[in-house]
């Protein structure tokens, strides 16, 4: 067993790794290509960073490429992203032309890889139009949707659907997000990597030192929201909740955000948040670079409660990360958060700043409940949301697609 797999076995169990090896056997040597639009920032890039080496270690010829574009391309795809999550935002034709042109140019650059791969996973809307150019493709193509498309702005979804419908299958995080399409639609919730800098256990001293370096006080409870500065994450609502709590108990708030290179709105939202936070010394708005994984880990590990008050959420990997640190999480009742937060068990789901404030006060007053929920939370992630489970499902999906479409596929060992 290779070293990376060994490391995962130490967290998830040897039997989990054995199973992955068995499932990967029929796929050995196969070329699997993943395409997205950023190598840094955001949950997709984080997962691919580890999924690719893991697949390689299992004997699969896995590769990861990104598509690149100019400012207007990202402006267009950001609008697309927001519209798919429900914003009624029409995208001007000139931006759509940039989207199509950028996909065509990237197709030309990646042509050989795209045409020869056995399996291609295209992540999210940014590279979705690549397929329309790939007339000589050899392999099966999957469109992997990581965002909440439960109530998309129809004109934008209709535009994108023309590119998606040609795929052999699509993959969604939740059944609620699935849009009518005439191909198989698989459900695979995402996952976190327990060995990454962001999720491995840190020395206590490192956590304390980092919290000190940001001026966070040791003896006042800390609540933290880690996410991009994005209106769908409702950072202003979190500050409102904090202010409601602070009237009753001393508390500190951290809003920490890493930028993603494909998100042009981040700075604007960050400015709004800073203005709303004012000069309160107990609100810490931290701008962290995309590679600040240990710092984010320290913040989550050093917090008493994790908040993710999203109004819309694809899955909410920061929720999973918080749960994995053994912390109760108070989060918006939306998207994939509903799969992760079970009220009174791993945390609380809320819909308003008032709801979040009430739950924060409750948990701060009941340390025993906080501890019990934190233990449940970690076990829940161990059982369900580690990268090994997601990898198993990707492998199952590919095996299923290659070896038949029946409900039950029986693979025999090759005879010697």
């Amino acid at each position, binding site marked *: 067993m290779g070293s990376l797999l060994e490391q995962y076995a130490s967290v998830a169990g*040897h*039997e*989990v790794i*054995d*199973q992955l090896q*068995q*499932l990967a*056997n029929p796929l050995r040597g196969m070329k699997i290509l993943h395409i997205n639009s950023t190598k840094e920032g955001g949950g997709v890039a984080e997962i691919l960073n580890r999924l690719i080496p893991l697949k390689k270690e299992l004997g699969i010829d896995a590769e990861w490429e990104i598509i690149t574009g100019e400012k207007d391309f990202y402006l267009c795809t950001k609008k697309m992203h927001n519209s798919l999550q429900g914003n009624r935002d029409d995208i001007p034709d000139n931006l759509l032309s940039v989207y199509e042109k950028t996909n065509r140019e990237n197709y030309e650059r990646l042509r050989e890889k795209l045409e020869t791969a056995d399996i291609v996973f295209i992540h999210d809307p940014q590279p979705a139009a690549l397929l329309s150019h790939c007339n000589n493709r050899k392999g099966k193509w999957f469109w992997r949707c990581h965002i909440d498309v*439960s109530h998309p702005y129809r004109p934008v979804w209709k535009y994108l659907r023309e590119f998606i419908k040609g795929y052999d299958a699509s993959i*969604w995080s939740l*059944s*609620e997000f*699935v849009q*009518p399409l005439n191909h*198989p*639609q*698989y*459900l*695979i*919730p995402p996952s976190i990597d327990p060995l990454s800098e962001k999720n491995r256990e840190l020395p206590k001293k490192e956590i304390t030192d980092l919290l000190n370096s940001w001026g966070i006080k040791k003896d006042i409870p800390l609540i933290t929201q880690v996410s991009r500065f994005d209106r769908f994450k409702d950072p202003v609502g979190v500050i409102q909740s904090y202010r409601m709590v602070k009237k009753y108990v001393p508390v500190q708030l951290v809003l920490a955000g890493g930028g993603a290179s494909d998100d042009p709105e981040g700075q604007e939202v960050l400015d709004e948040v800073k203005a709303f936070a004012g000069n309160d010394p107990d609100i810490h708005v931290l701008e962290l670079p995309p590679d600040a994984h240990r710092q984010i880990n320290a913040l989550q590990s050093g917090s008493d409660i994790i908040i993710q008050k999203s109004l819309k959420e694809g899955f909410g990997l920061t929720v999973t990360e918080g749960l994995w640190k053994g912390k109760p999480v108070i989060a918006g009742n939306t998207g994939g958060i509903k*799969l992760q937060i*079970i009220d009174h*068990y*791993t945390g609380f789901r809320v819909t308003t700043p008032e709801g979040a404030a009430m739950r924060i006060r409750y948990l701060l007053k009941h340390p025993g409940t906080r501890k019990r929920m934190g233990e449940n939370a970690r076990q*829940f992630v161990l*059982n*369900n*949301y580690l990268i090994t*489970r997601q990898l*198993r*499902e990707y*492998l*199952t*999906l590919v*095996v*299923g697609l290659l*070896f038949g*479409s*029946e*409900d*039950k*596929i*029986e*693979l*025999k*060992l090759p005879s010697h």
Partner: protein
Amino acid sequence: MNEGFNISDCALIAIATGEKAQNLREFRDHLRTVHPGCFYYHFWGGLLYPHFNDPEFQNDFAVWASRNLHDQKISEQFAVIDPNIYSDIEDLRQEIIEIVEERLYESEHVPWAKRGQEFHFIRSQIVIFETGITYTDPRELVEAIPNMSLGSIFFHFIDSRRRTEGHRNDISVWLEGLGDEYEELIKVLDKIDPYFTTLSELRNIIHIAFNNFFKKIPNGKLT
């Protein structure tokens, strides 16, 4: 001749059908037409798919009826359904439809779920594969069981109930072929109720049964 016990493993992938129900009447209508694989997923699949292990309910229909329709009566009726006693999925489908029909008949109002709390019908595809591991001596399983994947436990202890005469587990069936020697162990294994536990708990229970039988640990407790 002892042919040995071949360990198989399985993994499941969920597939959306796009069909959803907002109320009990829509639910009944979908039940009549949904893919048979939906029943497998909603009754058995939860054990192999990421989810919260609900301590109260063993199938998704009962959870939805309780949590989202707020109809405790039908939720309880769904909850007690043992899917393994039906000879095939179509019988199971018919049973559920009848329960719903009866509830619709006796209800003054059709139970509704709020927007966003619809029941989404999901089907599954299951991939079963041979591990290449075979045990000929039951004693070997004492060491082997804790290292079996949860997929193997599912296949040999849950899925087996659809494949074997008398809805049993594969290990008991194999042991029976080895003679009377293992009668006591078979009795214990046959009595294990695989419901209301997680697969890892089930693995532990089977391990304890083997340990006790082979007297590795006298008090029957795992260390």
